[in-house]
């Protein structure tokens, strides 16, 4: 809610209009709006999903875009695939790698349950499903190390909490900004 005195505002606006500048009042307006928010819907997406990721241990950490581009153990037959235009992407997004660790077979992986970052008290919540094969399954005997690279819209949250589909917390880490 705005609590400003409208009268001096109008006089100011008149003065501003004489100088062709409307920016200052708009800035005040926006900041006031932001400060008054308690929840915000920022997006999270599955940027890259791999079953062969470098590193053997289960982990969650922020990574740079270049590291993701270099992370694949698979490659093209012919010319190198044109790298995606990653200019400026890191201005707006953070990338979070979550790895399952090395597994003895196929049938394991991570998938994103919700595409929204639920932010409470400056902590963003991410929900993932940890897939594993059933106990009676016949499985492909290839060593895998599944991981997921999440693309998070930057925002005013200082922490990330990662939970699984049983609502158990798996990780809590600080964002790079804090």
């Amino acid at each position, binding site marked *: 809610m705005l609590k400003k005195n409208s009268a001096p505002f109008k006089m100011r606006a008149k003065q501003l209009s004489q100088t062709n500048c409307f920016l200052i009042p708009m800035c005040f307006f926006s900041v006031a709006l932001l400060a008054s928010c308690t929840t915000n819907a920022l997006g999270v997406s599955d940027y890259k999903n791999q079953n062969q990721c470098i590193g053997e241990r289960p982990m969650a950490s922020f990574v740079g875009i270049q590291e993701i581009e270099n992370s694949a153990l698979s490659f*093209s037959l012919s010319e190198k695939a044109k790298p995606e235009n990653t200019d400026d992407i890191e201005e707006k997004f953070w990338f979070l790698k979550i790895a399952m660790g090395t597994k003895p077979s196929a049938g394991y992986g991570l998938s994103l349950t919700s595409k929204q970052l639920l932010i409470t008290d400056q902590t963003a919540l991410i929900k993932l499903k940890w897939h594993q094969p059933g106990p009676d399954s016949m499985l*492909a*005997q290839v060593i895998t190390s599944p991981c997921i690279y999440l693309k998070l819209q930057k925002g005013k949250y200082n922490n990330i909490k990662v939970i699984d589909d049983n609502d158990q917390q798996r990780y809590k880490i600080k964002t790079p900004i804090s």
Partner: protein
Amino acid sequence: MLYPTQYKTLVYFFSAALLFGCGGGGSSSSETTTNGTHLSGAITIPSFSVIDSDINNSQTASVSNSTISSAQEISNPVSLGGYVNSPGKGASGNSFVNGDVNDYYKVALKANQIISLNIADSNADLDLYLYTSAGAFVSSSLGANKNETITVTTDGDYLINVVPINSASSYVLSIGLVQSASVGAETQLKNSFSLTAEFAENELIVKKKTAQKTSNLFSSTQQPVIELMDMNTLQQQQSMMSSLKMDTHIMDKMEQGTSELQKKKLKTLYTAKALSNRADIEYAHPNYIRKTSLIPNDTFYPSQWHYQMINLPSAWDITTGSADIIVAVIDTGVFLNHEDLAGQLIAGYDFISNAARAKDGDGIDPNPNDEGDGSSTVASSFHGTHVAGTISALTNNNKGVAGVSWKSKIMPIRVLGAGGGTDFDIAQGILYAAGLANNSNTLPAKKADIINLSLSGSALSQTLLNAINAARDAGVIIVAAAGNAGNSAPQYPAAIAGVISVSALDAARSLAPYSSYGSTISIAAPGGNIRADLAGDGKPDGVLSTVANDSGQSLLSFYQGTSMAAPHVAGVFALMKSINNSLTPSNIDSLLQSNQLTVDIGASGKDNLYGYGMIDARKAAEAVSGVINTPAQLNVYPLSLGFNVNQNSHTLIVDKTSGQTLNLTSITSSKPWLTITHPASQFGSYTLNINRSSLSTGIHTANVTAVSDTGGTKTVNIVVQVGSDLNNGDVGRTYVLLIDTQTNATAKSFQADSSSGQVTFDISDVPHGTYTLVAGTDMDNDLFICDDGEACGGYPTLNQLENIVVDGTKNNLDFVIAFLDGALNISSDSTSAFVSNNISQGTGIKLDTSSSGFQRQEN
């Protein structure tokens, strides 16, 4: 009354009167009456006989065929008599001075036909070249033997070129008349000096005769007898090069190669031949390159350390597989559109019965494409694609990776989907691959030879056990991954008796850290270890093969696992089956247990980590070149048959090798005009019969296929020549001679050219006597007919000449004439010994054109 003595005198007088009164043989024959005594007949020329349009015979006009543009068009099949000479070589005649250094022939050829050049003069050296009709080099036979041969590889229009090397000779060029079975590989390779052979283009191996003193060719008195020489150095020695006396036309031939490499190689070959002719040189030949192993040219082959480790390159020297062998990959399916699997896949099936697990919207279906094995949005592994690529990636295609068995086919069977696979689905997949009844109610066109199961679980079900046993009983060899549990707990199906269980090795031939082990391990193979770079190539030690991603891109990746080890073994078994396609699961077991497929690693003998040891592809390939426990094989002889224009039947032997029982299931012909007559029992002599009534002039082909009950097949390639009714054979100017059997002199001669495939003769004023009647050509103009390479015929047949008693006109003295290519077998008990011996020795019969008895055909 006359007394006895008076009788005797009377008898003497009477006899003498008789004797002197009668005409008779001997030297007095010319005095007897001969006027009006004719000998006539027709000499038939086979319809495929052709004469070189420019020969040395000075009584004939030459039509040049010495350039590509003036190439003489000839038929196929053909028996062609010709003559070439280097300038100043050979007898005087049309081409003595200037030389006839190229004969070019234009002809349509079919694959597998043999072009055979028989060189008449044993001191002469002629070479044979083959070009496309546009003049591009195809092949050559450049030896110094009596025969040069080239085998045609593809149908097409070609130019054949005969070239003399510092010599002159008649020759017989035959196409489509010599069957491949009779020209063995040894004959073809021996001294053929083939341009397409691999040799160091700048080197020569030269052996000097030890008795000779040092010549200007060698650098010092003390030297090895055999020396490796450099062509560049040799060519700088002007005196040496001129001593080789190479004709300018040979120098021209050297420039005919279409690439710099070919030109160098031609120079080297001709220099080698010329050096061999020097008195001080025993022999000279190119330095052939013997590769010890076949290296495929796939871009990423250098990263496939796992093939070198099991001796695959030297196994590939023996075999690179066969398209007859099928390996079923029972797995996640295969990415059917992968660039590096193009052409390697045959039809398969998707046995995943649960639609959610299958991720393709339905239960079982005929499409084995890998639709993904990741739950929800989890990335797919494309595991089946990786396994398939290890077995049979498209190899030597200048991109991607190599596979173990380059030519065998993959039958993709999909049983693993999101979250893995079920026993029921896997069992159905195994039954289908083995050609047994299954829940798809379909069967493959041809069952798999080998099944690869890079999957496992810790429990064993009766369903899975039954399917495995049924497949093995059906003759399928089953290979499975031991498991990645890193302990000795049995994993199934690997641990089932009768399945080849494969543990995984790293790049140092040690057990990979994840690999299962135990008493049920049969064998070990590379599975990789991405943690290490023991291969030292800057990359993780994974097994490199084909994969894809969920966006449908063809990719490659390093994977590790016993999943990667099993297909190495399956691929080696495919190579083995390519050599001997009747190998059974029991044979594989015997070979394995007698240590013939492996190199022993780890503890001596069979052990719990590596079974009988690391698979050794070379050892395995060698083992099945007929060693122990050889199962019986179907034997058919010959595998290639030709029917000449006059042949209508041929014998085919069908038999089996010793060993186990084998039965002939069928023997069939591919064409209705080729029928097969069976003997009383299944093995023995079969007769192949040709019915020509429906066949047009030209060459016709057919196959005869014999199939045994172990699935072995043998195919016989058949070529039938059908000649035209027009009989347009021509051997050129023909001389018909009457040889007096008492004096061996040529009493009469008659010359004529052919007309409508015949040479007719009518020799008049023939004195009474006994003669041999013979006819021939004189292509080399040495005034002898019937020397090697020339056309020759005799009455009644050249193989068995008979004397003719002339005491009046005799007509219908018909016989056949053909080019002498050394295949003639003249009977030694012919009454016409003089003529027979001279022809069989290659001397020929003297053509005395100056004799008064020489007659010509009236034109």
